[in-house]
């Protein structure tokens, strides 16, 4: 059985906790199975429903050189937003390089599932973090990247926001040993020449399906997963190169439309590749309703991606 995303992440954390005797994890109710038994309560701390503590406590700890991970649930993603903005992202700069936050904000993320209205099925929150200076933001789409990016994030002396979306296992097998996946590099999931499709996390499932369908229909799509959302400097060359080749960029977001991550990607490509064709698919600018009829209608799926790609290729 392939390792799940959660398993791969916990394996990464366990390995790093063995490697660094100070590395500490704060969490709320999403129990990191097995870790407390191995490392004890002080290093694996179950906290009150207090995301300011979970994140702010980790920040204070990491300031004195105790690297730490703050795990917060998906409905609380923005409670520590100002702490990450005004402190984790800024203090190194404001102190002329003295302050460091060797921390990971491990953010559990939701997707657009039914029966979980409003606060429990919102997605795309990463773009609010990606716009904050001084933070790195990564979003793995498969267990292999998840483990490698988590290890890189932990070893990074800068604060990293690690977004864990619920995505079924796919991609390469996850080795038991430690390995790293670099922050700031995109992955070309499928090579193609007719159109470039960009998306990450839950949308990779839809895009992968769409790419197979398009292939059957004679369209060769290049599918790129950015994996990192900030900084984007190392990610963009892969995407720009692709769009220079295909002349077409289609993006698909699980998050809502306005200011979604792919808007930034399109804007950067539009500056770099004149005359290309662009299309952005996304959830509407609405909260997610609980009724399945409504939310399933609103969410972008493989069929929508296929239809949009075909339209662009025909034009």
């Amino acid at each position: 059985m392939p390792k799940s995303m959660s398993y791969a992440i916990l394996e990464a954390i366990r390995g790093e906790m063995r490697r660094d005797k100070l590395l500490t994890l704060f969490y709320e109710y999403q129990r990191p199975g097995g870790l407390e038994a191995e490392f004890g309560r002080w290093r694996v701390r179950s906290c009150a429903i207090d995301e300011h503590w979970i994140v702010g406590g980790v920040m204070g700890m990491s300031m004195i050189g105790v690297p730490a991970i703050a795990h917060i649930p998906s409905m609380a993603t923005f409670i520590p937003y100002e702490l990450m903005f005004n402190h984790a992202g800024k203090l190194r700069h404001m102190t002329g390089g003295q302050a460091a936050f060797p921390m990971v904000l491990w953010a559990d993320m939701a997707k657009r599932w039914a029966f979980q209205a409003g606060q429990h099925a919102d997605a795309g929150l990463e773009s609010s973090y990606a716009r904050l200076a001084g933070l790195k933001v990564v979003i793995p789409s498969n267990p292999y990247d998840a483990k490698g990016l988590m290890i890189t994030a932990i070893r990074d002396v800068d604060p990293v926001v690690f977004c864990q979306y619920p995505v079924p296992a796919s991609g390469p097998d996850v080795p038991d040993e430690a390995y790293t996946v670099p922050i700031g590099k995109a992955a070309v999931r499928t090579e193609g020449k007719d159109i470039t499709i960009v998306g990450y996390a839950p949308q990779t499932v839809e895009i992968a399906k769409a790419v197979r369908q398009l292939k059957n229909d004679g369209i060769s799509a290049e599918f790129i997963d950015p994996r990192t959302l900030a900084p984007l400097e190392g990610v963009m060359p892969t995407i720009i190169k692709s769009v220079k080749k295909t002349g077409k960029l289609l993006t698909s977001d699980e998050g809502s439309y306005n200011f979604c991550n792919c808007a930034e990607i399109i804007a950067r490509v539009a500056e770099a590749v004149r005359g290309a064709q662009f299309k952005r698919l996304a959830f509407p600018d609405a909260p997610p309703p609980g009724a399945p009829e409504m939310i399933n209608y609103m969410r972008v799926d493989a069929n929508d991606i296929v239809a949009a790609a075909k339209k662009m290729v025909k034009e």
Partner: protein
Amino acid sequence: MKEEVCVSESKHVVAAEKGDKTGVSRRTFLKGLGAIGPGTIFFSAGIARQAKGQYGPTYTDGLSAEQLTAMYTDMLKIRLWESKIKDLILTGGFRGVAHLYVGQEAIAVGVCNALRKDDYIASNHRGHGHLIAKGGDLGLMLAEITHKATGYCKGYGGSLHITDMSLGILGMDGIVGTAHLFGAGAAYGIKVKGTDQVAVSFGGDGSLQNSFFSSAANAAAAWKLPWIGVIENNAFQIWVRSSDVYGIQDLARRADGYGIEGRVVDGNDVLSVYNVAKYAAEKARAGGGPTIIECKTYRWYDHYGAGGAKRGVDGAFRLGYRSDRELRDWMAKDPIPRFRKFLVNEKVMTEQRADEIVAEVTQAVEDAVAFAKAQPVPKPEDGLLNVFAEGAVPLHKS
């Protein structure tokens, strides 16, 4: 590390007791009038000085037989309607989710009966009981929980967000603690309007941190707002014991730090709850400011859904983070038979009338189920409405 590692709300089996009987049949609780003494009210050490003698456990001044009967009926409504939902979930294919309130009925009913119809309540994720006690309709609630187009929120919200503004119900809310802030905000609004209404917020033992409670408490204390913060202390924040993450045992003690009167009350005794709430409401109406009421209680089911539960049987067992014995001890303090016994002893109702009420509520629940089932599902494109008061937002699928 075995594959069982997982990051979820999953149970952590600590020391599940072997050989526990796995439940008490539904009927037992209605009949089982065990050896439970009358409700007691107690105060935390820190706030003992605020105790006033008059809140005796069986104080029923000003409550007519009709009202007492209505309170009994409301408690049953919560119990039977939610037990039905649990059964429906276990049956499979339920179009929704639920955080069950069973076991805590005395709190919602005690508090809401101390309020006027035009008072406000702000509720949390475990709020079905609050809504029923404030007058919520069982059919419309079930229609909402199953995301039907004619439910309270037209199917948008579901269990976590049931709202009925016409009853002063500001809504359930999925974010822990915000109810307190909205309650205190509403209390400020009452002062601006110049009415003598009161605003109550409900939160669990988990709702004290996260800034919302603190902001509510400080503002309410500073300006003597007509706010009542009800803390339903059922010992757990999902599976985390509050005693492991707080430095205080009696959560009402937190009130003192803001300059607010804090009370601890037996949350399984509806009259004790009622009396403290009544006192707090009258104080608030008279300009005396806020009160924080901690109600000690226990939830019979798992944090969420029907894990560990069986159809037709009360309680969720073998949950790992709690012992079955602990649950059983609390089930023995079941607020409903306790209140029934009191009412019968005091000749407020006969055993026969009490049984009739059970039958009536059982029927009302069946009616609600039938009603909800018959309701239409929402139109897909309605998801684009109600973002703003006017218009629809665009779709971005093509």
